[in-house]
């Protein structure tokens, strides 16, 4: 034996093997390279053959009858099951088989477990995210929802079946067959359970009802004079066209919420400020839906349309499918992570949802007796906290963090001296949070009932238990009825309640009551009635004649243009609706043009400035991908807004809420000498609107020159829409998609956000439906079905939704057949 070469060789080989199987510190998103590259366990196993065969036989123990899934050429499953419970079983299996990683990852996010998988993140961002989710009470909320689900025999059975389906797939996974992302991040899926389903539902509740502006508004109130504050944050925008048309009658409130006697002194005139920073969901989570009655359509039957605006993630938040049981057939999109079809239609009716944008998250300032935070001042004495727990946050590559979370009568303490959220400023103040989705509820029940709804009454019964996140449910049926209802359990607030952080020293500022369900704004049009359409686009549900005070963050412009178009349209066809859903007209830009051009000094413009001005003048407000007008307008308005507001806002070191763009535009239309136009830093000069508009235009020149050099002047390139992988890795995303639209267009495609599913359903005897989403049915980046629909979505084209019948088993559209039986696998 040659001892020295042997030892060297042994050392090098072992060293190499170990190095290739080690996670390298600091490279937390990097996999173990040996395991990752190994063709027998690594990513090559995820390289799905382009001619892969999805047919086969699967045994699902406990399945009540036989089940069959017919996949069409887009890998859309048409599930034929012996019962709804069986359908849930198979749905769970399909979700897991095609989307396991995303569904589990989203429940990790909901449960505040991101750092466990991703590490602490830059500037501890993932740890802050996790602490925010845990303190908000996401897990408690999911457990409360689970309690409600499990007390209901139908829901319990369906959710148990769904969980069993997910676990049937997880149970047979080997290292090699794990989804790619588990290999990238090097971890393994946990068994699924009903709590994870509930966590997913709460994740959506956070996305859609987790937004408020309480801290920014509190600081703005304390900084600005009463008059200035009223100018920046008017109650209702001038251009509002509410969901329920102006002039509609409303039932009077059952009980009027009472404003506390101390409201003026301790609340509206308080000078308290906040430095903590909340975790907030994507601010433009919104949507469009509308239904037109038969009197406005060519077929004489209603058409329902819906396009929910969510992050355009890959894998998509949606999974398209058809579910056929002996009692109904439903088609549409489902959430991987939960049973049922969430947006869709059956043989009798169709429904679509948009977010209500109502404010259901409020904060209370808590005075603790001492640093132990065991007692707080409430109703005139020191009260013990209502609960205390210590959460363990496991952090990849670091020691765990133990977070002590106490609760008060208002809700959990979100911020205290040990946690300031995303702010780096130390604070000795504490705030408790009251959040509606934390209450026990069962939103899934609504979709269970909607799947088999036959008419308006079924729809109404189905949605009435839906508590949060508040949604506008649009509806149309084959009897000719169309309807919309803003459904949710909303707190009845006195005017101004929850705009700012509220005093938490007594019970007078607590939510007093819930708006009774029958007082929620709604509109029902039977065939031939009224204006012949219902619609919503996240605007205020009603004007100020609605007997309850409405608070939230309601955009105006999409609702305005939708109603304008629908009012003018007649003999509508599904093709007209496709054109409308993908319309890039920017009504905000149209309304802003008189302000920009009416107060512009063209004297002394150089050739370059004249050229850009000319492009802008010729632009017809269509945010099409090749237009340069939208880019010029976007930059010009942006500079104008900063020039008008920044001088005042810079006076405070705190983050102040900024007014909505509609507020600024309407102020400038109403009052060309609006006080904010004057720059407070130029003491002797009073700037005019013409000066700031002209100056803002000049300021866009360097931006435009740079965009021009980079070839980013066309709006599609400037806006740069992506269908982005959840881990934000460009290699796994579809980048630089040439799509138009934007925030205030019906086609609300922004950079990483937009119409996440476009659906059109015409309720003729034989239902005619179309749909498209920016993703693909497979969540595997190595599958040819990963991005099947993206290019069609970009081009604004649709795929017909095939409603497969029991007699279509031999139809040429069936590409693969997957059989399910109670017997054990293969």
């Amino acid at each position: 034996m040659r001892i020295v070469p042997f030892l060297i060789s042994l050392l090098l080989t072992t060293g190499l093997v170990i190095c290739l199987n080690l996670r390298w510190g600091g490279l937390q998103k990097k996999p173990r390279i040996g395991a990752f590259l190994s063709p027998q366990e690594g990513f090559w196993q995820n390289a799905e053959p382009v001619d892969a065969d999805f047919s086969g036989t699967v045994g699902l123990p406990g399945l009540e009858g036989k089940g069959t899934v017919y996949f069409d050429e887009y890998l859309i499953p048409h599930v034929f099951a012996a019962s709804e419970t069986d359908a849930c079983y198979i749905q769970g299996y399909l979700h897991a088989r095609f989307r396991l990683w995303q569904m589990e990852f989203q429940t990790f996010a909901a449960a505040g477990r991101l750092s466990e998988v991703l590490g602490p993140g830059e500037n501890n961002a993932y740890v802050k995210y996790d602490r925010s989710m845990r303190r908000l009470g996401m897990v408690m909320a999911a457990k409360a929802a689970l309690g409600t689900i499990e007390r209901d025999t139908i829901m319990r059975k369906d959710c148990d079946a769904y969980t069993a389906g997910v676990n049937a797939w997880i149970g047979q996974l080997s290292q090699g067959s794990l989804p790619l992302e588990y290999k990238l991040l090097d971890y393994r899926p946990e068994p699924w359970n009903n709590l994870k389903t509930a966590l997913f539902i709460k994740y959506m509740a956070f996305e859609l009802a987790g937004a408020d502006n309480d801290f920014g508004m509190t600081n703005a109130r304390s900084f600005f004079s009463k008059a200035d504050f009223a100018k920046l944050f008017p109650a209702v925008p001038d251009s509002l066209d509410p969901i329920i048309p102006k002039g509609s009658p409303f039932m009077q409130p059952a009980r009027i919420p009472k404003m506390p006697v101390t409201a003026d002194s301790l609340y509206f005139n308080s000078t308290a400020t906040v430095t903590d920073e909340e975790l907030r969901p994507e601010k433009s989570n919104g949507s469009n839906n509308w239904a037109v009655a038969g009197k406005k359509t060519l077929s004489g039957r209603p058409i329902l349309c819906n396009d929910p605006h969510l992050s355009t993630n890959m894998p998509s938040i949606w999974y398209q499918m058809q579910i056929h049981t002996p009692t109904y057939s439903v088609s549409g999109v489902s959430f991987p992570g939960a049973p049922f079809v969430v947006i869709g239609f059956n043989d009798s009716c169709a429904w679509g949802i948009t977010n209500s944008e109502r404010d259901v998250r409020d904060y209370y300032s808590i005075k603790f007796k001492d640093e132990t935070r065991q007692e707080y001042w409430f109703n005139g004495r020191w009260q013990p906290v209502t609960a205390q727990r210590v959460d363990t946050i496991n952090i990849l590559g670091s020691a765990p963090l133990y977070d002590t979370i106490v609760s008060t009568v208002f809700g959990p303490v979100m911020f205290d001296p040990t946690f300031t959220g995303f702010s780096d400023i130390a604070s000795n103040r504490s705030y408790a949070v009251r959040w509606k989705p934390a209450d026990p509820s069962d939103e899934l029940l609504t979709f269970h009932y909607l799947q088999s709804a036959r008419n308006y009454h079924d729809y109404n019964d189905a949605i009435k238990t839906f508590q949060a996140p508040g949604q506008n449910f649009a509806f149309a049926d084959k009897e000719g009825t169309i309807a919309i209802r803003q459904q949710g359990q909303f707190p009845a607030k006195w005017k101004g309640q929850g705009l700012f952080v509220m005093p938490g020293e007594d019970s007078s500022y607590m939510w007093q009551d819930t708006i009774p369900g029958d007082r929620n704004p709604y509109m029902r049009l039977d065939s031939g009635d009224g204006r012949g359409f219902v619609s919503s686009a996240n605007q205020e549900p009603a004007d100020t004649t609605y007997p309850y005070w409405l608070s939230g963050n309601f955009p105006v412009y999409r609702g305005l243009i939708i109603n304008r178009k629908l009012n003018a349209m007649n003999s509508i066809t599904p093709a007209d609706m496709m054109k409308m859903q993908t319309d890039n007209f920017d009504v905000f830009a149209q309304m802003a043009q008189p302000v920009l051009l009416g107060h512009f000094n063209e004297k002394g413009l150089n050739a370059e400035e004249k050229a850009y001005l000319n492009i802008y003048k010729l632009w017809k407000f269509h945010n099409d991908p090749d237009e340069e007008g939208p880019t010029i307008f976007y930059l010009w308005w942006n500079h104008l807004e900063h020039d008008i507001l920044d001088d005042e806002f810079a006076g405070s070191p705190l983050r102040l809420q900024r007014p909505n763009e509609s507020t600024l535009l309407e102020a400038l239309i109403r009052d060309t000498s609006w006080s904010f136009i004057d720059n407070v830093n130029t003491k002797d000069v009073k700037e005019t609107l013409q000066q700031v508009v002209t100056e803002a235009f000049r300021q866009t020149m360097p931006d435009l020159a740079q965009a021009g050099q980079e070839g980013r002047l066309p709006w599609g390139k400037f806006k740069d829409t992506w269908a982005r992988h959840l881990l934000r890795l460009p290699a796994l995303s579809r980048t630089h998609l040439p799509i138009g639209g934007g925030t205030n267009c019906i086609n609300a495609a922004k950079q990483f956000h937009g119409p996440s599913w476009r659906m059109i359903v015409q309720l003729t005897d034989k239902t005619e439906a179309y749909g498209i989403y920016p993703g693909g049915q497979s969540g595997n980046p190595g599958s040819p079905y990963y991005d099947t629909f993206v290019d069609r979505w970009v081009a604004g084209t649709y795929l017909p939704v095939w409603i497969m019948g029991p007699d279509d088993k031999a139809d040429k559209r069936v590409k693969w057949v997957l059989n399910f039986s109670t017997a054990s696998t293969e």
Partner: protein
Amino acid sequence: MLIKVLVNTLLIALLSFAGGLFFPNWIIAPVAFAVSLLIPLRPLPAFLSGFTALFLLWGGLALAADVANGGILGTKIAWLLPLNGSHYALVLVTALLGALMGGGGALTASFLRK
């Protein structure tokens, strides 16, 4: 001699594939080591034999997967790793990594037998 090298190579490749069905990626090093203990070779032929066996096994498996997949995933991973989107380079890197582990295992055995 040449027969011995060929048998050694073939055996390492076959047993590595079999081992890979049940064990993590590192199994190829002990497999190459064990086979080369049974079939003694001089250091260089031993190394080359282990190297070639795994180069062909891992490279072949990766190439087969890549071709069947039309390079869809290989291209994405080759952008994720610094390989400029070349899925062929990724196949080569895969083959080389396996080859180094296999060659190392076989070489170590050869020194032990000498």
